[in-house]
């Protein structure tokens, strides 16, 4: 499912909302989650999961074309931990043969 399919699905199930509002709402939700992480915060969605930042130490990498060593700075990467409900539902779907 892509973002535009997600927007269609939500619009179908929320007939009181216009497709335009759903589209804007999805953009706001994703932007808010991005902004929260970009300022070092966490995102905690009960029943779904949480997003946080993990730190990656500086390391020496390689330019894949030339093989030269490149110093890479330490950086933060986004991390998602699925919540209990999501974990259980996804695993249960395996047993149902999906």
């Amino acid at each position, binding site marked *: *499912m*892509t*973002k535009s399919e*997600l927007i269609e*699905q*939500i619009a179908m*199930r*929320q007939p*009181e*909302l216009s497709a335009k*509002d*759903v589209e*804007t*709402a*999805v953009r*706001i*939700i*994703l932007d*808010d*989650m*991005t902004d*929260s*992480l*970009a*300022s*070092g*915060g*966490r*995102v*905690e*969605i*009960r*029943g*779904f*999961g*949480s*997003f946080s*930042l993990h730190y990656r130490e500086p390391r020496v990498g390689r330019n894949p074309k030339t093989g030269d060593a490149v110093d890479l700075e330490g*950086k*933060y*990467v*986004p*991390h*998602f931990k*699925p919540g209990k*409900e*999501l*974990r259980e*539902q*996804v*695993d*249960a*779907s*395996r047993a149902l043969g*999906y």
Partner: protein
Amino acid sequence: MGALTKAELAEHLHAELALSKREAKAMVEAFFEEIRACLRENEQVKLSGFGNFDLRDKRERPGRNPKTGEEIPISARRVVTFRPGQKLKQQVEHYVGGE
């Protein structure tokens, strides 16, 4: 810094769009429920700019109870993984907050 929650997302939608508080709350619930429903059907979810939610089937593997050292197999299972998109990765990598 406090964590962003569904309540705050709904509050922001209510403020930004002409949605009632009830509609804004339903919208936030629907957003996460649709993603969950898709993952329940073993289908990947791709949100361009943000990231992809993928599913992986894991085989049974040997595990250990960390407290007692007792060996217990970890059963086969399906798990959700998240691969952040380019835009999200770029936005967070230069965060220099420090704990």
